[in-house]
């Protein structure tokens, strides 16, 4: 029974993970990625890591909603129901992917692993709790400080106004033909009004 569930969940996780890069719409891509995560979360629950499984489920759901929001912010087609294919170096990428997977498969098939399965799932959750929030709370505090630094960095990076003026200063629309090293000043030659374009409004 558990094996059947495992096969179903893991196949769904892999297939939806593959489809992420195959579908036309970015919205479909982000929610297929969510499906992949949800199925991995289900496998974690099967592996008796109940806390981690539910945490993954919860965290990734909200994260992928944010992902979908950003998808559309940075897309030429907000609805995202038009066909699209935006890939480069497909062969290199495919080879790298196979090599990465092959390395792990080689480990899986040829390495010797100790056999020490989880005996008491409840005890394991308790141990994890003490590890995270025990004597010095080191793990939890490190994670907290890391995330705090992340928040500060993210706000600094994405703030519409910085030390050096408006974030949109010198910003121009990209050329219609994609690619190349496009710099704003390239466009200033024949477009005297380009310097003070203000795209968007910075509000979110």
């Amino acid at each position, binding site marked *: 029974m558990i094996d059947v*569930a495992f096969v179903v969940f893991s196949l769904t996780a892999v297939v939806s993970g593959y489809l992420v890069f195959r579908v036309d*719409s970015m*919205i*479909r891509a982000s*929610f297929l990625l*969510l499906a992949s995560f949800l199925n991995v979360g289900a496998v974690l*629950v*099967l592996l008796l890591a*109940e*806390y981690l499984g*539910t*945490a993954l*489920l*919860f965290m990734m*759901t*909200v994260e*992928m*909603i*944010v992902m*979908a*929001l950003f998808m*559309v912010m940075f897309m030429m087609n*907000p*609805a995202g*129901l038009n066909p699209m294919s935006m890939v480069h170096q497909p062969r290199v990428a495919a080879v790298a992917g196979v090599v990465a997977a092959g390395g792990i498969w080689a480990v899986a098939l040829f390495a010797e692993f100790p056999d020490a399965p989880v005996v008491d*799932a*409840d005890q394991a959750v308790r141990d994890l709790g003490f590890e995270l929030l025990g004597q010095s709370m080191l793990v939890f505090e490190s994670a907290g400080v890391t995330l705090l630094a992340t928040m500060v960095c993210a706000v600094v990076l994405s703030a519409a106004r910085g030390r050096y003026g408006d974030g949109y200063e010198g910003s121009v629309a990209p050329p219609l033909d994609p690619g190349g090293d496009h710099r704003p000043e390239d466009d200033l030659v024949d477009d005297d009004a380009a310097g003070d374009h203000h795209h968007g409004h910075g*509000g*979110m």
Partner: protein
Amino acid sequence: MMGGDRIDVPSGIDPFHPALAVPVLLAVVGLGAVIAVILHRKVASSLAGTGGSPATSAAAPLREARWLARQQVVTTERPDLATWILAPAAYLGLAVAALSVVPLSAGVAVADVRTGIVVFGAAEALAIVVIFLHGWSPNSPYALISAYRFVAVALSYELLSMFVLIAAAIPAGSLSIGAIVDSQAGLWNVVRQPLGLPLWLVVSWGVTFSGPLAVVDSADLAGGGGVEDSGLQRLAWAGARAAMLVVFAAAGATVFLGGWQGPVLPGGAWMALKTAALLAVLVVGDITLARMSAQRFVRLAWAVLLPLAFLDLLIAGLGSL
């Protein structure tokens, strides 16, 4: 969802037989949804002073449901049919999943798992995805705009809901909702954590996109997310939404009003009464409170309501010292 063998649930709650669980839950939500719709119309008509019209009779919703079910379903150009069709079912499924961790009476819950409020929160988060997809999939501008507007609102109320639930779990010392009910034997959380219930009402209006947070299927976008729905789809979406309203009323009654606890009457009756009371509050709010613009609500949520949720956590923590 948690599957496997559950080990010593704190409140010793025995789940229903698995085969019974889904029909029972569906019956509870279905009945609740019908009651919610009737209540909504009665209140609306009495507030507007138009009592006694055919639309407010108890049979009217069922009549309209039958009528809607027989209508033709029209589609748009190149929609994402799978998500469009599945969205109402998924929304209802999430309502049922959320209700499964809520004890309906003393010792009667489908799955009073140890991580009850996390499961509830996960169902709530997935509901955001479903509501978004329902608006996105018809490939129609107003529906799409409403879906995005909802995501901005939803990301803002989502945090409130988790903080409020965690605060309620602090006195219980457990994430199980059964344990949260047990912890209110002496004093209800609505007294112990006065900020919890008002914030919960905001979250409930958000998840069911009604009242001040009616930003999805709203008139200002010509019907928004539901603008392209027709026939059975429209019926399913409306029904699922009424069901979700009932589930959030039930959860609020459980977490803040002591759930099934009360003198004289049996537990189930108390639970029904409290759920009905909260449902009435939610419905009256839905009818009387004006829609907030999404931008205003986002500002309010992050700048005012979120600090209030922190304060709620602080009060809960201090109370448990």
